[in-house]
């Protein structure tokens, strides 16, 4: 489904991703772990089409189609979804309006009729319950004043509404209490499907108890330095990143240059 070959990306002239190779097939769940500043969010943002990052080399295809040719909104309509590490607050745009606009943009793209306000309200309430978010949050500004955990649940709410082909979850487990972690995991597991792939960025193997990945990759210094099965996560938890030969300056490329 997703194929990343020799991907290099930089920000403000500084190279962050230094040749990423990754193949993800439909139905698979991949986890990416790695030290702070190693480029995990950069990879996620590049996949979603954030123009802050410049792709200098390499290619990304989604079901054979060149992703780099597509605008962010076109990628989303083709099925790419990114749950942000730091979801954005947009006061003045109600969450409900935001969600409905997004869902209808997707429906229009697929040639389906738009949902009217009443139909959508019903759907949004149901999905809110699924992620244990009080429907009152639909009335508030997008993420406005939401707690960290509420923001993460709102991201999963969006994923459930938009039903992406590839869901990229950037630290959706961070900052969650134990109950919330279960709720979010249930949401993510509900997304698992034969025709869908999930790429999870996480620091904690804890999440992987709930959402069992098919593959675990270690991203360090802008490269994938190790890949394995889920047991790799346990090993990392025990031994840290040092044994992989990941040095501090590799973990933080900005310090190296």
């Amino acid at each position, binding site marked *: 489904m997703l194929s990343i070959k020799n991907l290099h990306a930089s920000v403000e002239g500084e190279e962050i991703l230094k040749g990423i190779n990754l193949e993800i097939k439909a139905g698979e769940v991949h986890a990416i772990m790695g030290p702070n500043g190693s480029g995990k969010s950069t990879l996620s943002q590049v996949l979603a089409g954030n123009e802050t990052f410049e792709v200098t080399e390499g290619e990304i295809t989604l079901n054979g189609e060149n992703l780099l040719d597509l605008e962010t909104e076109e990628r989303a309509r083709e099925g790419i979804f990114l749950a942000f590490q730091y979801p954005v607050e947009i006061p003045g745009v109600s969450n409900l309006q935001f969600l409905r606009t*997004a869902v209808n943009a997707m429906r229009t793209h697929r040639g389906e009729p738009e949902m009217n306000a009443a139909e959508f309200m019903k759907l949004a309430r149901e999905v809110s319950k699924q992620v244990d978010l009080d429907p009152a949050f639909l009335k508030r500004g997008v993420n406005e004043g939401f707690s960290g955990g509420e923001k993460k649940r709102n991201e999963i709410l969006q994923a459930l509404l938009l039903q992406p082909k590839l869901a990229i979850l950037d630290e959706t487990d961070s900052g969650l209490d134990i109950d919330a972690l279960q709720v979010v995991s249930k949401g993510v597991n509900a997304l698992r499907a034969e025709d869908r792939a999930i790429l999870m960025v996480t620091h904690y193997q804890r999440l992987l108890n709930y959402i069992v990945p098919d593959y675990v990759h270690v991203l360090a210094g802008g490269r994938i330095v190790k890949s394995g099965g889920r047991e790799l996560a346990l090993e990392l938890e025990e031994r840290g990143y040092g044994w992989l030969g990941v040095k501090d300056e590799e973990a933080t490329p900005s310090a190296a240059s």
Partner: protein
Amino acid sequence: MKPAPTLSSAFLEPGGHSLPAPLLELRKQRGTALVDMPLPTRKTENWKYSSRHLKLTDGLAASLPATGKDGLSLSLPGYRVVFRNGVMVPEASDFPDLDGILIQRFGDLDDNDAAALAERLDNTLDTRAVQMARLNSARFEDGLYIRLDKEAVLDQPLFIVHEVTGTASGSAYPRIYVDAARHSQITLVEEYLSSGDEPVMVNSVTEFMLADGANVTSVRLVMEGENVQHIGATGVRQAANSRFESHCVGFGGPLRRHDLMVRLEGEGGECKLNGVVVTQGKQHYDNHTSIEHVAAHCDSEETYRNIAAGESHAVFNGRIHIHEDAQKSNANMNNKNLLLSTGAEIDTKPELEIYADDVKCAHGATIGQLDKISLFYLVSRGIGRREANTLLTMAFINELVEQIPVQAVKDAAQLRLNEFFDQTFQEA
């Protein structure tokens, strides 16, 4: 040194001679005083950004024809008075005769009322600060006098439609005076519209005199075309415990100017001034507001938002003057500005003059652009650029649009806003 330009004498010949004698007399007096009136220039502080957009060619001096063809079709709820080119059109107007409320065009006033009005006209305005309003006083050909007796309540909004027809070049001078006695209430909507495309100037003046406890809401929607220079002034005087609320929504043109001056003259007075301004292309919009806290224990709250696209220019100048005796004044002024293109310009200036020591006065002004990260977040959900930009821009003014107390105005403003968004934002 080049002599300052003065008002051409062509402007000092008003039409419409069927006004009651006291008003004709007043108009003549005001006209005489205007001979050699210096026009605002770049050096005139309160016109420094706008004087170059003020084009008083002799062609504009003519009165526009009092009747023209029905240019605009309107369906408005509530009571309605239509002025075409500054003169009331009775056939298009519709309002009932109500106990304790006089709503009458200047031309139909009896001698007593006309004399009473002549005494009042201009008494809410500092005509040194609003130079151009003086021209209205010398030129008005008709107008509307609204007088609410003690405790009278107008049960529905009164829509005043000011329409100008640009089938020939010229100018119109709409004039309104509202006298609100103790504890009376009214919501007045002024809509400024135009048809045709010959150059036209609208110079309008609206005055509100609020007695103790009066409650007045003024809604102003400015939507004239690209051929119209619009210069408006609103004067407000408030006695004790009165409340004045103003909602201005304006779309740009070659020149749009509004001076809004409020004097809080009795204790316990309250005013709330909201404004939304949208400009595009090469348009120019200039809002000057002034709030004078003359008496103690008054509250004022002002919120203005400018949105400028293309190469347009918006100006906000907000003055708050707290007089020496106005202790316990509470004044809040906030102006936020959104630039939608690199070619647009916004100038904002708070002017605070505080002579009392026990007051609360807060002000803030910001100029910014749409947030790129917010935009990315929206489009990453499949929302198109045009819609995403529209959502973010609406977010900037939503709060003010929501507060407009008249649904028909909200709807009309939203329609015009949607046109603006369609013209301003593109898909990637």
